[in-house]
Structure formats: structure tokens, C-alpha cells
């Protein structure tokens, strides 16, 4: 079920290094959200910017009725969102999209995220943790974003930064490659920049490891009506998938990475 909550009370907005953590009250969404699903947030009171912004759910707390998103101010819409404070109200639609496949137990699983692409993986990690052996691989330009990820997730993790300010200096996929020399996990889940996803997909295919990725796209409706957020099916197959409705989570075999 999808809900439109035009006046969800904001409980907190915390500015972290490089990003923001927005917590709002939306009991129906908190109850039904699955890892990998997103919320569609109206950022302006008026008509400019016109469209909602799709943001992955980072945490859902059903007992408290709270939903947390972790985002960076990358444009005018998300910049406006940063002004929200406790007891403001935010207009939210969700939970939307197809989440990660969580039908897995007793397996070794890798979660590989870049930047705020770690957000849905933090939610996923919580869901999978009891029943599986999980390792989180997090990469970013610098330590800023990763410090927040460390606060949000207690999973065993490897960290990589481009400037070397936390963990391995270099790319997170280099850490992934090293680990794959020692063991073979049953599944990868990944979210982040396209270049990272492409490399993760290459490594997964080389060892026949099933991979799910969460994709990003500009969207208008978020529910599959406008047909705007189309993505290539890859392998020369005709037609397009819709990131909002068919995804945002796809098996790597379904899309062109």
C-alpha cells in the first residue's frame, strides 16, 4: 500500500558532515517499508521546484512510527529540504518501488555502497543481519559520509576513501576485490555511483555471484504513471524498465550496468 502523508511531522533534522539525516513521523510508511524502497518528498511549498524528490529509506522504526532518510544537498530541491526543522511538516508519499529481495538466510552476504548510496544498505543490513553473515563495504570521497554510516550501522565493515582520511586510500571496489580472493559470498547488494556499480557488476559476474543494485533516476510521479524514469534493459533487449516501479532495485541481469 502507498500512502500520501501531506503533513508528516518532522522529528529531527541533523546536519552531519557532508549530508543530512531527516527523521519524520509516518507510521504507515514505517510499518510497511521494505529495504530498498523510497519515499517521494515535496521540497517546496509552491510549484518551484515542481517535482518531488525520491530518497531511499535509510531506517524505518515501526514501533516509533518514524522514517529516516539520509541525503546530500545536491540541487535546489534537496537544498530546500535542509531547512526543515523539528515540528515542521513535510509532504511525503511512500513507500514506493520494489525493494531488495530479502529471502535469504544462513548465507555470507556483501553490501557495497558508495556515498549516500549506503542509505538503503543500512536498512537492508538491519533486516538481514540476524539470519546472515554480513559484511559492509563503504566508499566515499572522504571520511565525512562514512563516519555517519559508522554511527548508523553496527555491521562488520571495510571502509575506503579517495583521500585516505578513513580506511583504505582508494576505491571501495579494490577492497571488495581483495576480499573475493579469500572467500566467495552468496550474494551482493549494491547502491552508489554508476562507475562503482559497473565495477561491482563486473566482479560479481566474474564469479557468478548474484547481485542486486539500487538505481537512481530523476522521476516525476514515482508510481509508474509518467514513464519518465526509464532505464535500458541491456543486452540489446528492446524496451525500457521504470526505475520507480520496476525498481529502484534490480537484479544486475535485468539492467544495463
Amino acid at each position, binding site marked *: 500500500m502507498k500512502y500520501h502523508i501531506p503533513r508528516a511531522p518532522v522529528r529531527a533534522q541533523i546536519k552531519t558532515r557532508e549530508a543530512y539525516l531527516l527523521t519524520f513521523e509516518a507510521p504507515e510508511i514505517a510499518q510497511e517499508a521494505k529495504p530498498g524502497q523510497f519515499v517521494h518528498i515535496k521540497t517546496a511549498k509552491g510549484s518551484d521546484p515542481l517535482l518531488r524528490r525520491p530518497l531511499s529509506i535509510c531506517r524505518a522504526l515501526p514501533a516509533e512510527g518514524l522514517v529516516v532518510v539520509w541525503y546530500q544537498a545536491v540541487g535546489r530541491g534537496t537544498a530546500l529540504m535542509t531547512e526543515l526543522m523539528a515540528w515542521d511538516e513535510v509532504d511525503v508519499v511512500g513507500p514506493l518501488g520494489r525493494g531488495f529481495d530479502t529471502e535469504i538466510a544462513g548465507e555470507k552476504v556483501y553490501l557495497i555502497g558508495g556515498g549516500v548510496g549506503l542509505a538503503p544498505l543500512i536498512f537492508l543490513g538491519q533486516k538481514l543481519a540476524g539470519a546472515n553473515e554480513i559484511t559492509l563495504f563503504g566508499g566515499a570521497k572522504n571520511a565525512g559520509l562514512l563516519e555517519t554510516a559508522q554511527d548508523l550501522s553496527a555491521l562488520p565493515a571495510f571502509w575506503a576513501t579517495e583521500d585516505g582520511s578513513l580506511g583504505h586510500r582508494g576505491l571501495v571496489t579494490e577492497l571488495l576485490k581483495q576480499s573475493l580472493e579469500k572467500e566467495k559470498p552468496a550474494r551482493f547488494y549494491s547502491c552508489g555511483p554508476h562507475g562503482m556499480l559497473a565495477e561491482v557488476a563486473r566482479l560479481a559476474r566474474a564469479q557468478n555471484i548474484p547481485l542486486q543494485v539500487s538505481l537512481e533516476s530523476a522521476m516525476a510521479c514515482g508510481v509508474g504513471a509518467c514513464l519518465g524514469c*526509464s532505464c535500458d534493459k541491456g543486452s540489446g533487449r528492446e524496451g525500457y524498465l521504470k526505475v520507480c516501479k520496476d525498481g529502484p532495485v534490480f537484479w544486475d541481469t535485468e539492467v544495463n550496468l
Partner: protein
Amino acid sequence: MNTSFAKEPDLGVEIAGIKMKNPVMTASGTFGFGELYTDFFPLDQLGAVVVKGVTREARAGNPPPRLVETPSGLLNAIGLENPGVDKVIAEYLPPLAGCGAPVIVNIAGNTAEDYCYVAEKLSECPVVSGLEINISCPNVKAGGLAFGSRADLASDVVRQIRAATALPLIVKLSPNVTDIVEIALAVEEAGADALTLVNTLLGMAIDIKKRKPRLANITGGLSGPAMKPVALRMVWQVSQQVKIPVIGLGGIVTAADALEFIMAGASAVAIGTGQFINPCCCVEVAEGLNAYCLTHGIKRISDLIGVAWKE
């Protein structure tokens, strides 16, 4: 006036013989086949459901990127992506039976023969109450705009479709023309039962970092509040010249917007981009029309049609 004793206003309108309980319709291409917004409101709250544009053959649509947000507006170049008429009839229309609102199917094509083929096929579906003829898609070479930008060609294609089906015909016009009144009069004369005014405005956006157009299709159709004054002006001009009803659309997001269109001469309104921003937009606009009528002692919404030029 004590509104607690006021009689509920009559929001009903009739377009091309199709009775609607209120004047709020969905805009084609923004509501799928009616299946996507049912978590937000039941379809029987709508005046009519206008479904995605259907063509003879299945179409994959344009390559991405297909969308660009612009100030108070949205540029799209979807490219008439649809499953084709046979699949639409077999899979997408049957669930709409008994939905509580009339179903209007938008059709597009490359040739007059394509339009007639699709119209004939849809005429055999009892769930279909009417056809909206798209001769105004700006985003595909063969999307009908070739017909919609010349009065003689528009008239010819409408006349052929008129001969091919007994269903009510609503013709959706393009704003990307020099004289929309001329085209409106031509399609009225050719047998159109109603007009939808207007499709999107042709536009574009450029990425200054890449120094290239933002849309893969280069140009797209502008919708949303940014285009409302243009659409309103066209409804004003056309509704004073034709005898058939006009459905107004273009940037409607509130009941006040809808009232402007009705006062400009629209007998009904359609909502597209507004529904993307607010998934309950159509029902909130209908409720807002009801509230306006109550507050202002309007017994029938139809009394407001064209009042801005009638009085």
C-alpha cells in the same frame, strides 16, 4: 447563507454525451490505465478516466533521459510508449469495467488508417465510453502532430475516424500552432464531439556543463503551472467560437486553477502533471469545486462555464 442547510451543488457535466459526476478528468499519459493510483483514491471519484495514448503497434518510447524539471514546469519526451491496442484491449482495459467512472481511451497513430484501425478495435470494447484523438503529440515524428498542425489534415483524419466508429470523439489539440481557433473549427466541422485543449508546449533545455540538450529527444513537451496562462488563453479563444464542449488542461493543480478554466469556457478539466505532484490532486480539485459552489451559492457547476466571457 448558512451552508449547513445548503443543498449539495450539482457538479455533473456532460461531454460528448458522456455523463460525468464531476468535471475532473485525468489527462492522458499521466494516469497509466487507471491501476496506479488506486491506493490514493477510488476511480469512482473521478469525472472520467482518460488512459494512456494507445497506438496500433506496441511502442518502446524514446531513449532516456525523458524528463527535465523546469521552473514550475516539466519537460517530457516519453514518445508514446504503450503496449499496443491488442494488448491494451486484452489486459489493460478489462480491469476498468465497473470502475464507476467513464473510461476514455486516447489514441494516436502514424496514418489516418492507423487511427481508424485502433478506433474500430476499441469500438468493440463495452468498457470504452469515448475516444480522445491525439493529433498533438510533440515527441514522436509519427505522433499525429503532422495532422494537428494543419486544419485541412486535422479535418481529414477526424472525418475518417468519425466514419470508422460510433463512439464519442474528443479531439486533443496542440498549442504549437499559429491559429488554434482555425483548427478547432475544422475538426468540429469534421465531426468532433468535443475538444481537449491543450497538449504540451514544445520546449527544450540545455545542460551547460555538457553543452548538449538535456533530453535525448532534444525537444519535449512542457506541462505544469508554467504553461497554464497559455492553455487558459486558448480555452478562452476556442470556447467562444465552437459549439462543442471544451475540456481544459494545462497546469491545473488546485480547484482555483480548474475554476479559471471553467470560467474561461471549459466544460470539464483534466489534470496531468498536478497528479504527479499530489497523488490525490484530482479528488482534491473536485472537492474544492464543491466547496466553491457551496460558498458562493452556485447550484450547478455548469452555470460557471464561460462566465468570464458570457457576462
